[in-house]
């Protein structure tokens, strides 16, 4: 009998092209997603070496980071952004790559459109010059972010040099309570293991609370694996996965579909397979989470008080916490509930899918945004936008007093002009609360779409369960 294998090991082993002694493996890549920010220098490299894109049909490009979310008929005012977008168009045309460009009905955040169009499938290796590529692991794919030099390598060879990572078993037992979402699971996990806790590992999320999640909720969890230091997060495919992929534009059809499904059913981790590390979380114990600091590991229950650096023994951690609280303008021991907020951002590759917008809209329906508050709702793709509009969610947001924008990364990374002002506080459904992430001097509280919508209504950090 063969050794029991994990989901990760099965995919890894199936993609090894070559493995020289004392060298990283040559790993074949099934799907390469490309966006405008991390690819220009890679295409320049190809031109300098006179190389082509080896498999253009396995390469999919879009524009999401630099793109404005205002009225699409208006010109792009930022000359550098306009140049970068034009460069992506030129590169896609010159190298024969499929591009979901500015005028495409399918444009959107790369990690939203990949799954939406059916490019993302179980068992694949997927890379992109973007750390949140971990999102696609929700389908039982091995998906991770790479740098621009590696983007060039994949364009040229469809392969990457990779050292085999370790495996991390994250079991989530029990059942989520009302008002608690997959965002709260991942924020709770990162608060426990820290932002470096998963370094060198690929996480597999397992257990009944994970199996009960929809594909969109699973994507939220895998998306933030990188915030715990893990390059990839994975969830074994099951009927929910197969149901999601079925019928999508680039999903296999007919006999190929039947064959694919039978392959995918062999992917889940075998009984008795060993992981290098493990942790268990009980979903029954979870409540809505929020971050108080300047990295995603600085998170707590929304009902908790900000921790006190004087109670931290490790000197460098004490310093880090003091520095974070100073940046955030928070006092040790103060509760966050009731803390005033200036901006609410609902969007990003973490939480901009239709189910996220439905959740936010369920709270905002027949209610108003608090006076003076700016609320931005940014759908993850033009397809999500159309769907939301078909369901009337845009009207709910607009009538409440929120802005309803075009698809893109927007205020998550604040490259496109959507940003918070110095000193302002934002409750954001995005993935990073680093200093200045949402605009220089801006202060971010990361939370779920429900918690963000609750803050939109009250203008303060709020326990969404009190409004449901």
């Amino acid at each position, binding site marked *: 009998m063969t050794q029991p294998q994990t989901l990760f090991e099965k995919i890894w082993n199936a993609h090894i*092209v070559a493995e020289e002694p004392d*060298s*990283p493996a040559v790993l074949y890549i099934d799907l390469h997603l490309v966006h405008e920010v991390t690819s220009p220098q890679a295409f320049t490299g190809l031109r300098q070496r006179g190389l082509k894109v080896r498999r253009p049909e396995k390469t999919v490009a879009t524009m999401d980071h630099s793109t404005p979310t205002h009225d699409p008929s208006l010109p792009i005012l930022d000359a550098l952004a306009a140049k970068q977008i034009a460069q992506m168009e030129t590169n896609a045309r010159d190298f024969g790559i499929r591009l979901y460009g500015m005028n495409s009905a399918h444009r959107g955040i790369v990690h939203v459109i990949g799954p939406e169009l059916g490019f993302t499938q179980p068992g694949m290796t997927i890379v992109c010059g973007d750390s949140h590529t971990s999102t696609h692991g929700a389908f039982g794919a091995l998906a991770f972010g*790479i740098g621009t*030099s590696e983007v060039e390598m994949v364009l040229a*060879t469809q392969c*990457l040099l990779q*050292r085999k990572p370790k495996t991390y078993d994250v079991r989530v037992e029990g059942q989520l309570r009302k008002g608690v979402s997959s965002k709260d699971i991942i924020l709770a996990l990162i608060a426990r293991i820290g932002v*470096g806790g998963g370094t060198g590992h690929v996480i597999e999320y397992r257990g009944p609370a994970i199996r009960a999640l929809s594909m969109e909720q699973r994507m939220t969890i895998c998306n933030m694996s990188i915030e715990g230091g893990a*390059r990839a997060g994975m969830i074994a495919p099951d009927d929910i996965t197969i149901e999601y992929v079925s019928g999508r534009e680039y999903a296999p059809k007919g006999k190929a579909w039947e064959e694919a499904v039978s392959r995918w059913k062999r992917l889940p981790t075998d009984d008795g397979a060993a992981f290098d590390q493990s942790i268990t979380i009980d979903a029954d114990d979870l409540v809505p989470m929020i971050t108080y600091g300047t990295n995603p590991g600085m998170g707590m229950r929304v009902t908790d008080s900000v921790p006190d650096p004087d109670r931290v023994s490790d000197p460098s951690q004490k310093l880090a916490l003091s520095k974070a609280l100073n940046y955030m303008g928070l006092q040790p021991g103060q509760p966050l509930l009731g803390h005033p907020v200036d901006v609410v951002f609902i969007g990003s590759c973490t939480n901009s899918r239709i189910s996220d917008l439905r959740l936010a809209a369920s709270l905002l329906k027949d209610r108003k945004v608090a006076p003076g508050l700016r609320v931005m709702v940014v759908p993850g793709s033009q397809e999500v936008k159309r769907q939301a509009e078909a369901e009337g969610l845009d009207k709910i947001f607009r009538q409440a007093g929120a802005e309803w924008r075009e698809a893109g990364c927007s205020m998550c990374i604040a490259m496109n002009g959507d940003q918070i002002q110095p000193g302002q506080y934002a409750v954001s459904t995005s993935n990073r609360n680093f200093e200045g992430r949402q605009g220089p001097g801006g202060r971010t509280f990361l939370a779920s779409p429900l918690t963000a919508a609750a803050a939109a209504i009250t203008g303060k950090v709020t326990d969404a369960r009190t409004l449901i």
Partner: protein
Amino acid sequence: MASFTTLTSRLVPLPVNDVDTDQIIPARFLKATDKNGMGDNLFADWRYNADGSPKPGFVLNDPKYNGAQILLAGDNFGCGSSREHAPWALTGYGFRAVISTSFADIFRNNALKNGLLPITVDAQTHRDLFDLAEESPQAEVGVDLASQTVALPGGKTVTFPIDGFSKTCLLKGTDELGYLLSFEKQIVEYELNH
């Protein structure tokens, strides 16, 4: 890629844990379509006021550390995004090595592809180096990649880990794409069988 063999340099101490790539180079500078000029924006929000004047308290603005080529940083350096602009900014500024107790995975990969050596040391050596950099800013340490050592003033030498492949690439200045292209035959075979 520039090769890395030995380096003798002073240290720039940045005693901050979990330095993320948004601090190393803020996202608004990622609209560039080439790799050059990133060094001016290294640590931009810690280094400059909103009007562009230097912030006096930040270590890169302290004249006694001018010209040092080794950054000594807190634990888990380079977490966050996959932007290779982070090592481009560090090398563009003039850094050739970063010392920490640990590095985020993608940052480490990106650094190695740009001739920037990530040096992992144990917690005690890390503390000793910070003491050295703060008490004797003129003191130099010697990095020797072939022997994987850092020599401190006073004779102490510590070793650091690096995988053999990355070490060879750095020593020779080999670029990984060239190596990968040599697998053409195996890649074709793989594609035929899948």
